[in-house]
C-alpha cells in the first residue's frame, strides 16, 4: 500500500515507525530487567500487632500480650499491642479478620476433643465467627479431624494425639494456659457458693438462702456486653455463654465429660437406617417458651436448620452463625417425627461426637423465623450479606431456660427472673427422670456492671452485691481472703488463653515462623507473673480433658516447643540462630524477611 509512494512525508513516516519499533524493543528489554529486579525486593522488617482487651476488662489478657510483646521484640520482631474493647475486638478478629494476632480465651466453658473440629478445620476458614478465625488450612489436620469424629477408643486416642502434636508444631494458635476463675462471694445472704460458678451454670440455682429477706441474687460483672445483647449466636457479645445458657435451654448439657438430659428427656442412637446413624430425641412433656408458647419438636428441628444457615436457604450463600458451628455441623438433617420426637441425622460420626450436638441453645421458631431475613438498618435494607439473626440484640430474649428476661439497661444492668414454668422448677421432685430438681432460693437474678474488678469486689464486700459474676484479677485474692464476710471461689476453668494468628497473610502465613514464635513464650513465667500461680500452663487446647498425649503435655523446662531461654529471659544468641536457620536475616537487631 505504501510501495508506490515516494513522497518525503511517507519516508518520514517510515523513519518514525522504524524508530518506534527500535524503541519498543529497547523498552521490552528494560521491562524484563525491571520485572526481574522487582522480584528482588529489598528485605523488609517483620512486624506484628497483637490485639487484646484492655486491663479493665481482662487484666490477664492484657498482661499476657505485654509479655509476648517484649519477647517478640527481643527476637527482633517489631511488635505492638493494641487494646480493643471486647465486642469490637471480636468483631475485628472473628468477623472482619482484621488482625495479625490476638490474645483471647476459648469461648466455651469446656473443651472436648471435637471442639477442635470447628476451631481449625479448613472447611470453616471462609466463615465468620469462632469457627476457624485463623484462616488455617492443613490437609493432615483436616484428615485427622474428620477421622476422630468416626473413631472411638484407642484408635481415636491415637488420632487425637497426632492431631495435637501437629497443631503444636504448625501453630494456628498458641495455647498459653488455663486460668483459675477467681471470684468473691458474700456469705451473709446466700450460702453454698463452692462450685456455684463451676462447670454447670445450673449450679447457681442451687444456692442456699441465709437471709430470709433475700429474694434477689445480685451479681456484679466487669463485662457490660450481657446488658445490651442476649443473642446466643453472636460471637462478639458472648463471653462463655453462662448467662445465655440459663436463658436458652438445650436438649442436653455437657457435664463431667458426658452429656446429661435437659429439655430432651431421652435419646437413642440408631445405626440401622440406610442413611447412616440417627439420634432420635424425645422431648419432655409440656415444655414452654418464656412467652407461653409450647416448645415442640418443630422448634428443635428449626434450631438445627438455623444453625446450619441463618437465612434458612433464602440467601444464595449460606449465612452460618458465629458460634456453635462445630456442634451443629454434626447434624446434617433434622426431621420431626411427632410433636415430641425429633430425628437428627448424624451420618459421619460416633455417638459421643453426635451427642455434643444436643448441647446447642434451642431457638423458638416463632421468634427466629423472621430473623432469617436480610439485616436492615431502621427498616431500610442495605443489601447486607447477613441476616437479622446475626445482628439483633435479641432483647427481650425468648428462651426456655430456668431464668427469663425481665429488664435490661445498657451498660448498667440485666435482671432475670426465675421461670416458674420451667420443667426443673415445676416438676414433681419425686419424678425419677429429673436430672436435678431445682428450687432456686431467689426470685430474680440481677447483674450489675462496674468498670473494674477491684470495685466489683468492694461492692461484694460492702454487701451491695452477693458475688462477682465473672473472674477477677489474682491481685485481689488476698483482699478477698482477708475480708470477714467474703469467701474466695476458685474454679478450674476449661477455657484457655491463647494467642491466635491470622495465617492468611505474611509473616504469619509461614508455619515455620509461627513455630518459632511458640519457642519465644515462657508459659511458666506467664503463669507466675501474670496469674500469680492461679493458672495452669498448657500446650494443647485439650489440656484438662485427659486426652493429651505425653508428647504435648506441658512439663516444666521442656515441651514440644521449648522456650529459648530461661526464667522468662530469652537467650538472644539462640533465638537469632533459630530464625537465621529458618531463612530470616538480622540487621542490627531487627528481623528481616525477604
Amino acid at each position, binding site marked *: 500500500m505504501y510501495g508506490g509512494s515516494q513522497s518525503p512525508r511517507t519516508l518520514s513516516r517510515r523513519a518514525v515507525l522504524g524508530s518506534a519499533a527500535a524503541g519498543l524493543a529497547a523498552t521490552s528489554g528494560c521491562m524484563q530487567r525491571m520485572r526481574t529486579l522487582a522480584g528482588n525486593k529489598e528485605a523488609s522488617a517483620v512486624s506484628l*500487632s497483637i490485639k487484646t482487651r*484492655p*486491663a*479493665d476488662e481482662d*487484666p490477664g489478657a*492484657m*498482661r499476657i500480650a*505485654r*509479655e509476648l510483646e517484649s519477647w517478640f521484640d527481643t527476637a527482633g520482631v517489631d511488635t*505492638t*499491642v*493494641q*487494646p*480493643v*474493647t471486647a465486642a*469490637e475486638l471480636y468483631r475485628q478478629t472473628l468477623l472482619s479478620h482484621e488482625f495479625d494476632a490476638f490474645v483471647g480465651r476459648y469461648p466455651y466453658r469446656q473443651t472436648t476433643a471435637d471442639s477442635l473440629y470447628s476451631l481449625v478445620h479448613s472447611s470453616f476458614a471462609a466463615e465468620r465467627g469462632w469457627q476457624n478465625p485463623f484462616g488455617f488450612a492443613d490437609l493432615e489436620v483436616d484428615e485427622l479431624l474428620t477421622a476422630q469424629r468416626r473413631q472411638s477408643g484407642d484408635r481415636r486416642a491415637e488420632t487425637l494425639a497426632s492431631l495435637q502434636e501437629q497443631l503444636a508444631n504448625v501453630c494456628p494458635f498458641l495455647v498459653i494456659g488455663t486460668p483459675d476463675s477467681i471470684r468473691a462471694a458474700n456469705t451473709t445472704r446466700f450460702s453454698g457458693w463452692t462450685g456455684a460458678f463451676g462447670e454447670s451454670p445450673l449450679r447457681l440455682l442451687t444456692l442456699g438462702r441465709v437471709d430470709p429477706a433475700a429474694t434477689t441474687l445480685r451479681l456484679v460483672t466487669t463485662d457490660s456486653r450481657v446488658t445490651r445483647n442476649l443473642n446466643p449466636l453472636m460471637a462478639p457479645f458472648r463471653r462463655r455463654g453462662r448467662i445465655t445458657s440459663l436463658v436458652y435451654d438445650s436438649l442436653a448439657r455437657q457435664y463431667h465429660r458426658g452429656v446429661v438430659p435437659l429439655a430432651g428427656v431421652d435419646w437413642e442412637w440408631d445405626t440401622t437406617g440406610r442413611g447412616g446413624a440417627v439420634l432420635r430425641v424425645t422431648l419432655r412433656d409440656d415444655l414452654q417458651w418464656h412467652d407461653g408458647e409450647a416448645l415442640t419438636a418443630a422448634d428443635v428441628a428449626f434450631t438445627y436448620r438455623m444453625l446450619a444457615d441463618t437465612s434458612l436457604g433464602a440467601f444464595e450463600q449460606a449465612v452460618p452463625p458465629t458460634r456453635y458451628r462445630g456442634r451443629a455441623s454434626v447434624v446434617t438433617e433434622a426431621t420431626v417425627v411427632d410433636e415430641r420426637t425429633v430425628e437428627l441425622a448424624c451420618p459421619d460420626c460416633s455417638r459421643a461426637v453426635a451427642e455434643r450436638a444436643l448441647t446447642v441453645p434451642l431457638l423458638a421458631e416463632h421468634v427466629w423465623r423472621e430473623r432469617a431475613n436480610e439485616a436492615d438498618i431502621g427498616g431500610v435494607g442495605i443489601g447486607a450479606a447477613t441476616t437479622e439473626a446475626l445482628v439483633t440484640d435479641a432483647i427481650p430474649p425468648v428462651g426456655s431456660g430456668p431464668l427469663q428476661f425481665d429488664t435490661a439497661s445498657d451498660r448498667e444492668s440485666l435482671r432475670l427472673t426465675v421461670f416458674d414454668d420451667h420443667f426443673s422448677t415445676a416438676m414433681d421432685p419425686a419424678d425419677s427422670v429429673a436430672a436435678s430438681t431445682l428450687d432456686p432460693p431467689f426470685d430474680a437474678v440481677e447483674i450489675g456492671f*462496674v*468498670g*473494674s474488678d*477491684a*470495685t466489683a*469486689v*468492694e*461492692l461484694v464486700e*460492702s454487701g*451491695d452485691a452477693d458475688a462477682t459474676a465473672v473472674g477477677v484479677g489474682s491481685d485481689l485474692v488476698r483482699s478477698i481472703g482477708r475480708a470477714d464476710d467474703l469467701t474466695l471461689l476458685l474454679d478450674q476453668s476449661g477455657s484457655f488463653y491463647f494467642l491466635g494468628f491470622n495465617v492468611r497473610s505474611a509473616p504469619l502465613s509461614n508455619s515455620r515462623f509461627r513455630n518459632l514464635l511458640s519457642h519465644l513464650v515462657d508459659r511458666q513465667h506467664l503463669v507466675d*507473673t501474670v496469674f500469680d500461680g492461679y493458672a495452669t500452663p498448657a500446650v494443647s487446647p485439650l489440656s484438662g480433658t485427659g486426652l493429651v498425649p505425653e508428647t504435648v503435655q506441658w512439663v516444666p523446662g521442656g515441651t514440644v516447643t521449648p522456650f529459648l531461654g530461661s526464667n522468662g529471659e530469652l537467650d538472644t544468641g539462640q533465638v537469632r540462630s533459630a530464625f537465621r536457620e529458618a531463612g530470616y536475616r538480622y540487621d542490627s537487631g531487627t528481623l528481616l524477611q525477604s
Partner: protein
Amino acid sequence: MNVVSVFSEVAVVVSLLLTVGAVTVVGPDRIRAELPVLRTRLRQNARPLLLLVAVLAVNSVVRDVGVGLSWLIGSNITKTIYAVEGAFVASLQSLAPAWLTLYLGFVYIYGYVFLLVFPLVLTLLLGTTRYLRETAFAYAVNYGIGLLCYILFVAYGPRNFAPDMVEPLLFDTIPRFQLVTAQVNANTNVFPSLHTSLSVTVALMAYRLRAEYPRWLPVATFLAGSVILSTMVLGIHWATDVVFGVLLGAISVYVATRPRFHSEGDPP
C-alpha cells in the same frame, strides 16, 4: 454503697469545700453584702449559666453515643502514645508515696469538682457579668474540643494498656470512686485529659481575677497542679494527654477572653 451514695458523698464534701472557700477567699463581709442582690446576679448571668447547663447536657449524651461512634470512625492511638512516652507514668507512679496517692485520689474527685464549681461562685458575686461569661465559655470550648477528640481518637490510659507497670491506683485505693468515674466517662476517652485542661483553665482565670480575689490564685494554682499530677500518678492519663490538656486549657482561655466575644457596652 452504691452510685447514689457515692454521688451524695461527693456533693456533701464539695459543698463543704465551697463554704470554706467562700468564707476564706471572698470573706464573710462581702458575702453578706452580696446576698441581697444574688437574685439579680443570677438573672444577669442567666445566659452563660444556661450555656453551661446545655454544654453539660450535650456532653453526657455525646459521651454515651460517642464511644460507639469512636470505635467506628476514630483511630486507636494508644500504642502511638506509648511509643512516644514509654514508661514515664510508671516511673512517676513509683516515686509517689502512699499518702500522696491517697491525697491525689481525693483531689481527683473532690478537688476537681470544687475547682470547677468554685470559679462560678466567685464570678457570680462580681459586679460584672464578664468573668462568668468568660469562664462558662472557656469551659464550653474545653468540652467541645475534648469531645471531638474523644470521637476522633480511641485511646486507653496507662492502667489499661500497661497493667504490668502501671497500677490502677485510684480504684485500688478508693474503689468506690470508680462508680462515679464510670458514670461520667468511658475508659477510651483519655486523649486529651479534660481534668488537666479544665484545671489549667481555672488557674488561668484565677490569674485574671487576681485583683478581685488575691487569695484564689495560689489556691487554684496548687489545686490545679495537684489535679494534673493526680491524673498521671493514679494511672488514668498519659503524659501526652496532660500536655495536650494544658494546650487545650490555654487555648480555651485565649478564645474565651478575645474581645470579639464581648458584646458592646461591657464594662472593661
